[in-house]
C-alpha cells in the first residue's frame, strides 16, 4: 500500500501511509487508538475508498479495491467481531454460501458438511471441535478457529487478523498463536494487528508502526526492543490543555476490594479518595470497560466488595448507584447519557427533579434559574435552555451530561471516556470542570484511552492488563511511554502472572 490518504469529514485519518508486506511473512501493524490502523485495513478490504494513493498486490496496481475484488485477489480478513451465525452448527457456519449438496440435487448434504467440517478443522489446526454444536455454544477461541477455517476454505493468499486475541484468555490466545505460525509454514502471508507488543515480538517477522495516520517505521520486532516500539507509537505534542489545580485529598470515598467478573477482570482492588482524580486505562480486552460498567451497575460482578463513603453497597442496577449519590457519565452519551429529544433544561434536572418539586409539582422558575446557572458555569453553547439536546455539538452534549450530575452535588463521579468525540475547546472546559469538582471535595474516577489526558488531569493512574490492575502510577512521576508499555504488556517484569 503506497501513500494512502483518507479523510473523514475534514478529519484526516491517514496522511500518506505506506505498508509493504512480503509474501510468506507475518507482518505486524501497531499504533495507538486513532493512529489509522483500522482505516488502513478497511481500505485494503475495500470497505473504504482512499482519497489518494495506490495498492499493489502481486505486481498489479489498484487505485482502490472493492470487497468483491479483495476477495478475488485472495485477501481475507478475520475481523474483531466474529461474523458467524450463532444459531448455526459449526458445519453450517463453515460452509454457508458454498454448501455441499446431494449429487446434482439442490439439497443440503448435512452428513458431508459435518464430516468435511471436522476434517478441515483437523487438517488446518490439528484439533477436534464438536462440529455438531451450535456456534453460540462454543468458546470464543473455538469460534475464532471456525472463523479462520472459513477464510482458509476460500484458499486465501493473504490473511489479515484484526486484534484476534481481544476476546481470548491467555491459554486460548497461545493456541491461536501456534495456529498462526503453522499457517505461515504452509506459505500464507499474514498481517497481524494488535495492541499487545509481546504478541508482536513473538509472532511477527516485521512490524510497521503507525502514528497519526503515517507510518513512522518498519522494523524487525525480534531485534528492536519493545520500549523503542512504544516510543515510536507515542505522539509527543504536549500542550497547555490541562488546568492546574490544588489537590486536598481527604478520606476514601470509593473502596473496591477484590472485584471479579469471569472472563473480564479478577481481583481488582483500589480506592478513590475525596478531592482526588483517579484515572484508569487499559486496552480493548483488558477488562477496564467491563470494570467501569460494573461500577455503573450496568453489568454484574461475580464476587468482591464495594464501599462508598465507608458503607458497603451492592450495585444491582444504576438506580442503586444513583441512590447513593454516585454520578455516572457513560461513554455512549447518545444511548445512556442524555435524552436527545429532551431539552437542555429537562436533561439537566432529570436526575434531581425532587430538588425542584413541591407537592409533586415542578417549581419551574426555580428549575429554570438553576439550569441557566449551570449553562453559564459550564459554558454550554446552546441557543436556549429549552433547545433539544440533539441540536448541540458533541462537546456540548457531553457538558449537559455532566451538568445533569452537577445539579445534584454528588460526592463520587465515575466518568467513562468523558472527552471522546469532543472538540478541543470543549475538552479544555470539561477538564476544568472535573478539576473544580475535585477541588470541591468530590472523588473522581475517569476511564480514558487518551494517556496524555490522564497524565494531565489525574493524581493517580491505574493501568489494567488482561483483567488485572497491572500497576498504579503517580501521574506526576510517570510518562505516556511508561503507561503504554504497561498497558501493552511490554514491561513484562511489572506484570502479575496471567491466568
Amino acid at each position: 500500500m503506497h501513500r494512502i490518504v483518507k479523510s473523514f469529514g475534514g478529519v484526516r485519518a491517514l496522511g500518506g501511509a505506506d505498508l509493504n508486506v512480503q509474501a510468506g511473512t507475518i507482518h505486524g501493524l501497531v499504533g495507538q487508538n486513532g493512529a489509522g490502523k483500522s482505516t488502513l485495513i478497511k481500505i485494503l478490504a475495500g470497505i473504504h475508498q482512499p482519497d489518494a494513493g495506490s495498492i499493489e498486490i502481486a505486481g498489479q496496481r489498484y487505485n482502490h479495491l472493492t470487497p468483491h475484488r479483495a476477495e478475488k485477489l485472495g485477501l481475507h480478513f478475520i475481523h474483531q467481531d466474529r461474523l458467524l451465525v450463532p444459531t448455526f452448527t459449526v458445519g453450517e457456519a463453515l460452509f454457508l454460501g458454498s454448501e455441499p449438496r446431494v449429487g446434482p440435487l439442490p439439497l443440503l448434504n448435512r452428513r458431508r458438511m459435518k464430516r468435511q467440517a471436522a476434517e478441515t478443522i483437523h487438517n488446518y489446526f490439528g484439533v477436534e471441535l464438536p462440529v455438531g454444536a451450535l456456534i453460540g455454544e462454543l468458546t470464543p477461541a473455538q469460534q475464532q478457529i471456525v472463523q479462520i477455517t472459513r477464510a482458509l476454505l476460500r484458499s486465501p493468499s493473504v490473511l489479515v487478523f484484526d486484534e484476534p486475541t481481544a476476546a481470548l484468555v491467555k491459554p486460548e490466545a497461545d493456541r491461536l498463536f501456534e495456529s498462526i505460525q503453522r499457517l505461515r509454514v504452509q506459505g500464507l502471508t499474514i498481517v497481524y494487528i494488535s495492541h499487545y507488543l509481546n504478541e508482536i515480538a513473538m509472532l511477527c517477522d516485521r512490524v510497521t508502526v503507525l502514528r497519526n495516520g503515517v507510518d513512522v517505521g518498519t522494523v524487525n520486532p525480534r531485534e528492536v526492543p519493545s520500549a523503542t516500539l512504544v516510543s515510536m507509537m507515542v505522539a509527543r505534542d504536549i500542550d497547555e490543555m490541562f488546568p492546574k489545580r490544588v489537590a486536598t485529598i481527604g478520606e476514601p470515598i470509593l473502596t473496591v476490594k477484590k472485584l471479579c467478573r469471569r472472563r473480564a477482570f479478577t481481583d481488582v482492588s483500589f480506592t478513590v479518595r475525596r478531592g482526588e482524580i483517579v484515572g484508569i486505562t487499559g486496552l480493548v480486552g483488558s477488562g477496564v470497560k467491563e470494570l467501569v460498567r460494573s461500577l455503573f451497575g450496568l453489568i454484574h460482578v461475580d464476587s468482591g466488595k464495594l464501599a462508598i463513603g465507608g458503607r458497603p453497597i451492592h450495585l444491582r442496577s444504576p438506580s442503586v448507584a444513583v441512590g447513593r449519590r454516585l454520578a455516572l457519565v457513560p461513554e455512549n452519551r447518545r444511548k445512556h447519557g442524555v435524552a436527545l429529544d429532551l431539552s437542555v433544561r429537562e436533561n439537566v434536572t432529570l436526575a434531581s427533579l425532587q430538588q425542584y418539586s413541591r407537592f409533586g409539582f415542578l417549581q419551574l422558575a426555580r428549575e429554570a434559574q438553576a439550569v441557566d446557572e449551570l449553562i453559564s458555569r459550564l459554558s454550554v453553547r446552546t441557543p436556549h435552555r429549552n433547545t433539544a439536546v440533539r441540536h448541540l455539538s458533541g462537546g456540548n452534549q457531553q457538558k449537559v451530561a455532566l451538568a445533569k450530575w452537577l445539579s445534584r452535588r454528588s460526592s463520587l463521579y465515575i466518568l467513562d471516556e468523558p472527552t471522546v468525540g469532543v472538540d478541543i475547546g470543549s475538552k479544555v472546559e470539561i477538564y476544568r470542570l472535573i478539576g473544580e469538582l475535585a477541588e470541591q471535595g468530590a472523588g473522581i474516577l475517569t476511564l480514558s484511552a487518551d494517556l496524555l489526558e490522564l497524565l494531565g488531569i489525574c493524581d493517580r493512574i491505574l493501568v489494567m492488563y488482561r483483567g488485572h490492575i497491572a500497576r498504579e502510577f503517580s501521574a506526576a512521576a510517570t510518562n505516556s511511554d511508561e503507561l503504554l508499555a504497561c498497558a501493552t504488556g511490554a514491561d513484562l517484569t511489572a506484570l502479575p502472572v496471567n491466568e
Partner: protein
Amino acid sequence: MDKSLAALGEPIPNASARRSAAGWLSLLIRAGSLFAFASVMLYFAIAAPFFLTFSNIANVLEQSTILGVLSFGMTIVMIGGGSNVITGGIDLSLANNLGLCAAVYASVLRNGQPDTVALSLTLAVGLAVGSLNAVAVVGLGILPLIATLSVMNICAGFELVLTQNTVIPATSPLLSSLTDNGPLGISYLALVLLALAVILIVGVEFTPLGLRLYAVGAYREAARAAGLYVQSYIAASYLISGVCGAIGAVLSVSLLNGSSTGSGAMLLSVVLTALLGAIFSRRLVPTITGTLLSVLFIGFLINGFQLTNVSSYWVNGVEGVLILFVVAATSLVRRGES
C-alpha cells in the same frame, strides 16, 4: 505443538458450565412443550373417547388448514427477517391478503369465469401484495412492522371495495372437490396443508437456499460477509408469504362456500402460532415443522374443548399464556447465551 493444540477441543470448564446451562434450558423448554402437547392430547383422549378417532383427527387437520397455511408464510418471513418481534421480519398484511384474495376468487367466479382464470388471478393478487411488502421493506427500507401494517390497510380497503362488506357466495368444481374426502378419508383441504408443509420443510430445512435464508435472518452481517445478496432473500420471503395468503384464500373460499368478511381477525393467531413454533426447535428459531406442530396443538386444543363441553373461548386465554411462556423462555435462554 500438536499436543497443546489438541486441548483446544476441550471447552474451558467455566464457560462450558454456563453455556450448557443455556443448552439445558433450551432442552428443557423443548421437552416441556412436547410433554405439554402430549399430556393435553392424553387428557382429551381420556376425557373424550371420540378425541383420538381417525375421523376426529382428520377433522382437526381440516379445521387447521387455513391457520396453518398462513402461519407457514409468516414463519418464512420471520426466518428471513430475524425473529425479533419489533425489528425482525413480520407480515401483518397476511390475514387481510387472504381476505382480499378470497374476495377476488369469489368475484371472478361470480362473473362466470372458470377455476383456472380465478386461480391465476388470485395467485397474481397474492404475489402483488407480497411484492408490495418486499418493495416497502427491502426497496424503501421501512421497518417491516410498519410497512406490512400499511399494506394490511391497503388490502382491507380493496377487499371492502370489492365486496361492499358482504359475503360473496361461490361454488365451483375445484372448490367442492377440495372439501371432498381424498385417500384415507382425509379431505383434500387437509392434504393441501400436509403437502405444503412437506414442500416447505424440504425447501427451508434441507436446501442451501433455506440455510442461507436462516443466515440472513439470524445475522445479516455474517450472511453479507458470506457473499449472499441478503436483500433478495428477504424480498423472496415476502413473496412466498403473499403466495401463502393466496393459497389460504382458495382453501377458505372452499371451506366457507364464498368470501367472508373479517379475515383480519386471524392475524394475531397467525403471528402467535409462528412464534409458538420456535419452542419446538433446538435453536429456538422459527421452523416450518415447529409451526406445523403448534398449529396442530392449537387445533387439538380447540377441538378438545369442544368435545369436553368447555367454552372454546378459553382457547384465547390458553394461547395467551402459551405465548407469554414462549417469549419468556426464549428471552431467558438468549440472556444465558449472551
